[in-house]
């Protein structure tokens, strides 16, 4: 079973996101692995453990710092890693998906996984677009994928805990919402070991695509309202919340 996981390196939303011109000031932000990619890596490794095969993790290296994420993927059980050397922090999802699809074409993938979404998918998610560029079916929002022979049984999540199961003939692309198990922990020592010993294949970007969007403005949302802020130490905040709840008959 040959599984390729396409990952996305994105600006961290845990920190402030300064703006420069009509986009994020990419020089002033930390890039992190898209949180859903941890689930798609886990899903791929679980399948490999169940039926055998190879897991290749590939991403677009936007700022020359993707290696950490790739070493982490290896420490979690990926067999091979590759990066598309782009040096273009503003590359949109269409562009990244096209580069990834071109790189994946020669890999003979039975399945391609991507995170179901990323917080910077302003022009849509890479998984759905990789599927379109590779002319493979796409299913997103998956919570479990099991392979048997030349087909997979895929569980897709719907609101309210409803699920739907599909049988899909390989190859296909999945946008992973969650793996059946929480992403495994990789010890720092193992990640360091991978950093010292692993080979990261470098691939030049090929192919062109565009979101077709012009960025006119990027700014914090115009708030129609704002919370009344409760000030003070944590104990004071707690006391004020309790008082508020009591005054409304909620405590």
């Amino acid at each position, binding site marked *: 079973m040959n599984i390729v996981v396409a990952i996305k390196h994105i600006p961290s939303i845990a920190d402030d996101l300064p703006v420069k011109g009509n986009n994020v000031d990419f020089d002033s932000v930390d890039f992190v692995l898209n949180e859903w990619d941890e689930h798609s890596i886990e899903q791929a490794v679980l399948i490999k453990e169940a039926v055998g095969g190879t897991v290749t993790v590939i991403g677009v290296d936007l700022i020359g710092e993707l290696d950490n994420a790739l070493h982490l993927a290896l420490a979690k059980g990926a067999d091979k890693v590759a990066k598309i050397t782009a040096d273009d922090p503003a590359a949109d999802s269409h562009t990244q998906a096209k580069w990834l699809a071109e790189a994946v074409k020669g890999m003979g993938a039975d399945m391609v996984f991507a995170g179901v979404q990323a917080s910077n998918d302003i022009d849509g998610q890479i998984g759905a677009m990789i599927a379109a560029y590779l002319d493979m*079916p796409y299913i997103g929002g998956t919570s479990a994928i099991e392979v048997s022979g030349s087909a997979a049984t895929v569980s897709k999540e719907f609101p309210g805990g409803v699920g739907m199961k599909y049988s899909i003939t390989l190859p296909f692309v999945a946008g992973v919402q969650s793996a059946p198990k929480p992403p495994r922990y990789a010890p720092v020592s193992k990640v360091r070991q991978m950093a010292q010993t692993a080979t990261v294949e470098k691939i030049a970007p090929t192919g062109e695509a565009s979101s077709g969007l012009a960025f006119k403005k990027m700014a914090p949302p115009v708030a129609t309202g704002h919370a009344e802020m409760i000030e003070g130490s944590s104990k004071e905040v707690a006391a004020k919340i309790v008082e*508020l709840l009591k005054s409304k008959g909620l405590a």
Partner: protein
Amino acid sequence: MSNDVFVITEHMDGKFSDVSFELVGKAKELAKAWGGQAVAVVVGSGIASNVFASDSTIHIDDAALSHFNPEAYGKVVEALVKERSPRLVMFGWTVTGMDMAAWLSARLGVACAAYVKNIGADLTMSCAAYGGKLTAEVAPEGGMAIAACLAGSFPVEAGQGSTAAVTMASPVDLNSLKMKFVEATKPAGGDVDITSQTKLVSIGRGIGGKENMELAEELAQKLGAVVSASRPVVDAGWLPRTRQVGKSGLKVKPKLYLMLGISGAPEHLEGMQSAELIIAVNTDKKAPIFNVAHYGATADLFEVAEAMVELL
């Protein structure tokens, strides 16, 4: 290209989701400004489709479309859009719309915007990017465009009506699909129903780990509340799926929604913004939730929760 606006509606168990009506209402406004028609597109079988206030409704009916199937639905929508060439195609940024919008964009080579929360008559689209921390204003560079819109962005009522649908057979062959629907699974019973609770203590990734759930449970117990959560907490396995609030979880409307460590990503807001009293505690003073909550505090959730437990 016409000046029409297509809305790809969505439904489950014979019922259309609110977002479909929201989009039809917005489509009417845009189509009117452009001199086109708002067209509700229904893909599916065994559903009454005369429920929209659209200028027209197209219902593609085929037994193979009884359940949502991303491959089948995608191919049908692609064929229809290619043939009719609307100016704008609207999807919900939902579990079904997300399977088609970006895919269709790449298939057809047309512009696509996601996380859309508003669309101007000049087709400028406002998108809730970076977990809602920034709003991107984007404009498609000519030709047809696709918009994947967040649920709750437009009023439901404007899209409700009784326009008679024109039923059509599938424009594509559905006999050689690689993807086949097998079965639907309902949530396992036995857990509390968070949609019927009057008070919820809702926790986000800020809770840090399963070992800290006890504190949230203790606080909830003192308040006579139930613990719910945002998606990362559920994906991490710290709470069952039945407790998840938001796009892929449940919509709740309690009297009290006390949020601990939830930043307020658009997907979560979809599920709780109608709560009567929203109180948010978060260490990030720029967390988008403070634009939605009634009361907020920039504080350590553990310290606040522990102090509240002592006081209650």
